[in-house]
C-alpha cells in the first residue's frame, strides 16, 4: 500500500511528466484551448500509459533487450488505435475536435519514457499504477492550462458560460501561442514553489 502511494505521488506530482520532465509538450499545447478536449485527451493518455505499461511489464521477461523498443511501440500503437476507434464510436464530436492528436498519442514521450524507465524493470501491477499515475499527472497539467485558456479566451468552462459579455475575449489564449505562455508560467510557478520548500 505504501509502495502504491509512493508511486502515485512520485509519478503524478514529484516527477510530473509535463512540468518536471517536460514531456508531452506538443499535445499539451495543442488541445488545451477547451477543458473538454483536454479531459478526453487526458483520459486517452491515462488509458494508454496504464495499459501499455502493464502489457510491457507482463512481456518483459520474454522480450529480448534489443527488440524491446519495437515491442513497446507495437503495444503503444495498438492501444492508441483502440482509443481512436472508441472515440469515433462513442464521442464522434470530440474525435473530430481532437483530430490528429489522438493518433499522435503514440509519439507522446511520456508513454515510451515510462515503459522504458519503469515497466521494463517492475512488476505488472506496479507498472499499471505508475502508468495511470503518470497519465493523471499529465491530465492535471492539461486541465490547469485549459482552465485558464478557456476561461480567458472563451469566457466559458466545459462549454458553460462563466464570464459574461463584459469580459473581452482574449484571442491570444485561443491560439497555441497562449498555451506557450500558460505552460511557461505554470512551470515557473511550480518550480519556484518547490525551490522554496527545499
Amino acid at each position, binding site marked *: 500500500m505504501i509502495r502504491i502511494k509512493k508511486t502515485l505521488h512520485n509519478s503524478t506530482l514529484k516527477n510530473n511528466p509535463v512540468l518536471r520532465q517536460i514531456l508531452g509538450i506538443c499535445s499539451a499545447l495543442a488541445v488545451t*484551448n*477547451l477543458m473538454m478536449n483536454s479531459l478526453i485527451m487526458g483520459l486517452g493518455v491515462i488509458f494508454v500509459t496504464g495499459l501499455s505499461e502493464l502489457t510491457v511489464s507482463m512481456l518483459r521477461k520474454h522480450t*529480448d533487450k534489443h*527488440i524491446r523498443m519495437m515491442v513497446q511501440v*507495437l503495444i503503444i500503437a495498438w492501444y492508441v488505435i*483502440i482509443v481512436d476507434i472508441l472515440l469515433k*464510436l462513442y464521442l*464522434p464530436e470530440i474525435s473530430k475536435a481532437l483530430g490528429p492528436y489522438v493518433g499522435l498519442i503514440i509519439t507522446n514521450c511520456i508513454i515510451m519514457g515510462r515503459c522504458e524507465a519503469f515497466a521494463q524493470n517492475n512488476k505488472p501491477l506496479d507498472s499499471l499504477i505508475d502508468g495511470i499515475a503518470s497519465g493523471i499527472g499529465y491530465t492535471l497539467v492539461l486541465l490547469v492550462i485549459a482552465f485558464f485558456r478557456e476561461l480567458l479566451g472563451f469566457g466559458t468552462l466545459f462549454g458553460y458560460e462563466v464570464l459574461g459579455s463584459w469580459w473581452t475575449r482574449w484571442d491570444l489564449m*485561443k491560439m497555441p501561442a497562449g498555451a506557450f505562455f500558460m505552460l511557461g508560467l505554470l512551470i515557473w510557478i511550480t518550480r519556484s514553489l518547490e525551490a522554496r520548500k527545499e
Partner: protein
Amino acid sequence: MSKKKPILFPTFFLIIVSIVLGVILGFINEASKEQIEINYFSDLQKALLYTVSFRTKDLEKAEINDAFKLRFTETKYNGLNYYTYSEDNETIGYCFPFSGKGLWGNISGYIAIDKDGERIIGLVFTKHSETPGLGGRIEEVTFTGQFRNLDISGTEEYVRYGKYNGKTIDAISGATLTSTSVREMLNNSIQEIKSIMSEVGFND
C-alpha cells in the same frame, strides 16, 4: 566482442505478438466499422438538413435518417455527388459540396441553392482546421445563417462582406484571412455550381 545476439527467438516473438495484437484489432475494427459509418453518415445528413433549415437538434439518428431520406436524393454527376432537395415531392433546390483553401488547411462544406440558381437556401461547413474561437467560428450559426436567402442571381461576386442587396453579411472579426478565403471559395464554387446547373439543365 560481446555475446552474439539471438535472432531466432526474438523474430519469432515479434511475429507472434504482431499476429495476436493484429487479430484482436481486426475484430475490434470489424465490430465497430458499421457504427462508425453510421455516425459519419448521420453527421453528413445533419449537415445537409441544416442547409435547408431543418432542425435536427434532439433528434435520434434514425429520425434524422428518415427526415433526410424524405427530402434528399443523391445523384452522381462527373464524379461529383450532389443532392436534390424536395419537400412534398416538389423539387426546391440542390445541395452541392464545395471546398477550398482556408488559413491552415482545406475547408469544405455543402451549399444548398434553389432550383433556379437565384438564391442560396443555406450553407454549412463540415470540415476545417481554422483556429478555434477565431476562424473556427465559420461553423457557427451566427456566421452561416447570414447566407440564408442570399440573392445570387448576378453574374459574379455573389458573396461580399458588408451591406448590399438589403442584406448585411459580417466577416469574422479577428479572422480576416479565413473570412477572405471563405468569400473566394464561395464565389468560385457558386460560379462552378451555376455552370453545372445550366449544363445539366436544372433550370428547365
